[in-house]
């Protein structure tokens, strides 16, 4: 019944944030390069503009290994975000496959893809994309509300709230639980978005220009959090950015140009 339970994965404890996120270590982190976590093969994507097809991706091959922090760089409009959306099953490729833990996911039924997005992928966006009607706490809880029925959410709400509060506290937002997004700063909003991405204990974090809308020091702070998540909790992270300095924080950098992976 459960899509993810059928996926045969070498068992890995789910990301579990402790009470604190320690500062990033200076020592070099070696990614667990044993298994491919998320992969794209021959990925093509065209957008229809009236009668003409505009190719955005023209055949992307990409492997994300488990526990890897991968940065995708490229100029604006080169298809970075599109690639990320395809990886996250938000969009369907024109051609090519996306595999998650060895299983093809781009052609799954809608309901399975929704479940995948809800349980396995955490997403972070440049413009935070928090729901303006919800408080910080509610925004963080949204994935759980979506993933569970009213009854089961209600039964587990105490634990869920507990966990959301813990997450927000570790991200330094313990005093902002009841605030609406418009009352938060950009850095705070992005941290709320990270907490939301983590609440369902996903395996992969997909970040679309997570620092693009933030000043440098705030951006570094966000990056430090991502780094910590990657190191401490073994989360695979795919980050899209146009900023080479930001990308330099990642384990590996993939350059996208002309709709294809260019030699780095």
């Amino acid at each position, binding site marked *: 019944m459960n899509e993810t339970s059928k996926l045969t994965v070498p068992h890995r404890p789910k990301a579990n944030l402790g009470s604190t996120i320690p500062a990033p270590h200076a020592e070099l982190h070696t990614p667990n390069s044993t298994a491919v976590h998320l992969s794209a093969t021959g990925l093509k994507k065209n957008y229809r503009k009236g009668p003409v097809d505009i190719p955005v991706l023209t055949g992307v091959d990409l492997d994300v290994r488990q526990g890897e922090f991968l940065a995708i760089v490229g100029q604006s409009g080169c298809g970075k975000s599109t690639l990320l959306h395809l990886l996250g099953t938000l969009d369907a490729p024109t051609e090519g496959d996306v595999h998650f833990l060895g299983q093809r996911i781009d052609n799954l039924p809608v309901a399975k893809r929704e479940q995948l997005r809800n349980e396995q992928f955490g997403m972070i966006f440049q413009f935070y994309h928090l*729901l303006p009607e919800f408080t910080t706490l509610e925004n963080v809880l949204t994935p759980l*509300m979506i993933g569970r029925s009213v009854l089961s959410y209600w039964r587990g709400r105490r634990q869920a709230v507990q966990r959301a509060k813990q997450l927000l506290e570790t991200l330094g937002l313990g005093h902002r639980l009841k605030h609406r997004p418009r009352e938060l700063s950009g850095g705070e909003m992005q941290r709320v978005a990270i907490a939301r991405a983590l609440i369902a204990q996903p395996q992969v974090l997909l970040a679309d220009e997570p620092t693009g809308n933030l000043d440098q020091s705030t951006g570094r702070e966000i990056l430090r959090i991502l780094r910590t998540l990657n190191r401490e909790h073994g989360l695979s992270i795919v980050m899209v950015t146009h900023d080479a300095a930001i990308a330099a924080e990642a384990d590996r950098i993939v350059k996208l140009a002309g709709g294809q992976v260019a030699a780095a």
Partner: protein
Amino acid sequence: MYKLLLCWRYLRTRYIALASIISVTLGVATMIVVNAVMAGFSHEMEDRMHGILSDVVLEGHGLENIENPQFVMDNIQAVAGKWISGMTPTVHVPGIITFNANGQSHSQQIMFIGIDEATYASVSDFSKFLQNPENRKQLSFQLRDGGYDVRDHQVGNKSPLRVGMEQAGWRWRRIMAERQKAWADNQSRTSTDGEHSSSPQEIVRPPLRPQNPEEQANSDSAPDAHAKTPQNPFGPQPIVEFDSATEQHPGVVLGIALASVRDHEGNDRFLLLPGDDVNITVPTAGTQIKRQDWQFTVVDFYESKMSEYDSTFVFVPIKQLQAMRGIGTNVSAIQIKLQPGADANTVRDLLRSKFPPELYGVYTWRDKQGALLAAVQMERAVLNILLFMIIAVAGFGILAIFFMIVVEKTRDVGILKSLGASSRGIMGIFLGYGLSLGFVGAGVGLTIGLLFVHYINQVRDGLEWITGQPVFDPAIYYFYEIPTIIDPLTISWIVFGALSIAVVASVLPALRAARLHPVEALRYE
């Protein structure tokens, strides 16, 4: 869960959507008020119609063509006796009433109804409409000493005082007799030619008939003089001394609107009181019609609050009327009262099958007033359709505003979808939102409507005060308060209809939201 929470939040934060359901609110409130008032009116009307009409009527064709009422009644009893609780014969004939009041001579066309005072009250609500409590117990065509209601007993203490009714009865008759005597004396002093003084002459004129049937029965000493009178009204009259202070003419019950006018404040101004005399003219039966003028003494008023009845019906003892018209024991109709729970249509059909239609017509009281009742029903249906259209129009308002909200929330939809929300879930948000808006609109409308109905008379007073115009003129409607009936079934239908319209109106925007592509929705600025 997120659906419920989002619905709730949208409800709390999007006040523009609340504006779109104001028309739902108003529509629901108006429908409730209109239905309550119309139901009240028609119930009141049916009540009154039924009050004067018996359940089933068996009529002869023509004015008095039932020749042997007892035989007919026996047959009715034999045919449908198990459903029947009472029967009484009646005679109907149009006539003219004339009387003097305030120095003017009044003439009016009336429906003259001869009733059997012993049994008529058992077939209709007739007695409950009378003004003397004793007559309400048992009608008598003898003038009462007094004790007439000074307020409308059907309304209670809220109704205005009826000036004059406190002295109605024999007391009033004696007062009038003294006044007229004094006036007559005065007249005869000032003018030797007494023939011009019509008014006292009318009062002291000997009655054409004995005072009442009982007396007629008792006065065996001079039966011939009495019996001859109707046959030869234009012959030489026997001189009978008539003292109007101690004697009365045959009793008559007048419709109250014949004897009074209602001013714009709802006060009744009486032209006549019980104790006064009136003159009634009817045609005789047969092909050589002659006029018959008779003096009667008003013994009570009849107030059904149906102005048509109250201004035309005049009741006299049936024997009196039969004698006046010279129709022997013929009657016009047999009024039949059914047992509680008996179906009038069944009895009607049964009687129709047994009594030859060329001699007798059988009708229920609804048949008799069918056109009016159907018109009221029709009016109500049309009004309901029109008002429901208002709510339907409100649906388009909801549709438009919902489209706006969906556009405004495009990015939220993208976010939710990126977090794994299904299209059905997204649709659920907006359908649920529509439903909750409908609930709010219908709920507020329901509250306003019920409050309006509850305080309708205060509202009327307020409106009258503001506009200076009578909104609900008791002179026309014959009741002092607007009658209302709240039917739970009607209200549930109204609320259900409003809710459905709100939901139906939100289907299209909700579909649109559900079909949004997550990536495009996320990009939406």
